[in-house]
């Protein structure tokens, strides 16, 4: 019998007060149903979530780290893209 590891899955949770799903970690599972069960058992034992997403890790498209210079550095000297150049009226709080 061929011995293989089950595929890797990534787990995303939305907490009770959270607005969006946040990456919680990864796990092994044979298929999507088992991945969801395992995610429930491994990552929501302490009431961490009210909604779970799982996706097989191979389906996530990530950028190539060796190209991060051309990917991210062009943004680093363009501070005018942050809205920090406006004068705010004093009456406005919490902005």
């Amino acid at each position, binding site marked *: *019998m061929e011995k293989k590891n089950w595929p890797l899955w990534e787990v995303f949770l939305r907490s009770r007060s959270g607005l969006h799903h946040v990456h919680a970690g990864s796990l*092994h599972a*044979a298929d999507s149903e088992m991945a969801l069960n*395992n995610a*429930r*058992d491994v990552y929501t034992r302490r009431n961490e979530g009210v909604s779970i997403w799982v996706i097989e890790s191979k389906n996530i498209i990530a950028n190539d780290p060796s190209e991060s210079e051309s990917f991210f550095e062009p943004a680093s000297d363009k501070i005018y893209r942050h809205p920090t150049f406006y004068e705010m009226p004093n009456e406005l709080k919490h902005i």
Partner: protein
Amino acid sequence: MLKQKISAYSILLGDQSLILGQRLGELCGHGPILEVDIAMTNIALDLLGQARLYYQLAAELSDTYEDEDQIAFLRREKDYNNCVLVEMPNGDFGDTIVRQYLFDVYHLMFLNQLKESNEKRLKAIAEKSIKEVRYHLNFSGDWILRLGKGTEVSNQKIQKAVDTLWPYTKELVQSSELETEMHGFGIAPNLADLEDEYYRQVKSKFAEAEIKLPEDKWSQIQGKKGLHSEHFGYLLSDLQYLQRSYPNSKW
């Protein structure tokens, strides 16, 4: 005294959960893979929590026992009234899953009835436990299908487990004297009412999982009377070791 009998009945229910929980707890750190290891111990903790609720109620009503710890840790083998099924050893993963599945099907049906009990505190325990047990059944039923329809080896192993554990299922749906009496008071379900539906569910799942049904040759129905398998003493010595060696020690 009715109060004493309700206490004894609550202990019987607690025993089923405690002993199965103890068995699953043995797998902590020894599960087949990390994710399943955690799943099994989650189920163990659910069961342990249920046992505590039953024992707390029992202790409150009892003239004999002062608290839940005394009931859980300081009784003798023959004072435990759990079905023999739940004390059977973990064996391989197939054995563990079949034992769990055979109990879960019964457990969910039973709790659905117990929540109609006229004893309010038992009813409340049933309502809380149902949510947990629904997941247990989902988990074990899923694995029955995976192993049954998996590889030739996994099918053989799960078939062996079913053949071994089948004789212990009858006891789940047969009332002891105490349970019959409790049913008379409207406190306990009539287990005989569950029997047909229990075997119908189990058989249909096994058919789907390509598991052959064993013949009904003999049944083990002594656990509720306090007569246990040879495995039980070892389980209790693990379970009770700390309280026996260091009486009254607190966590």
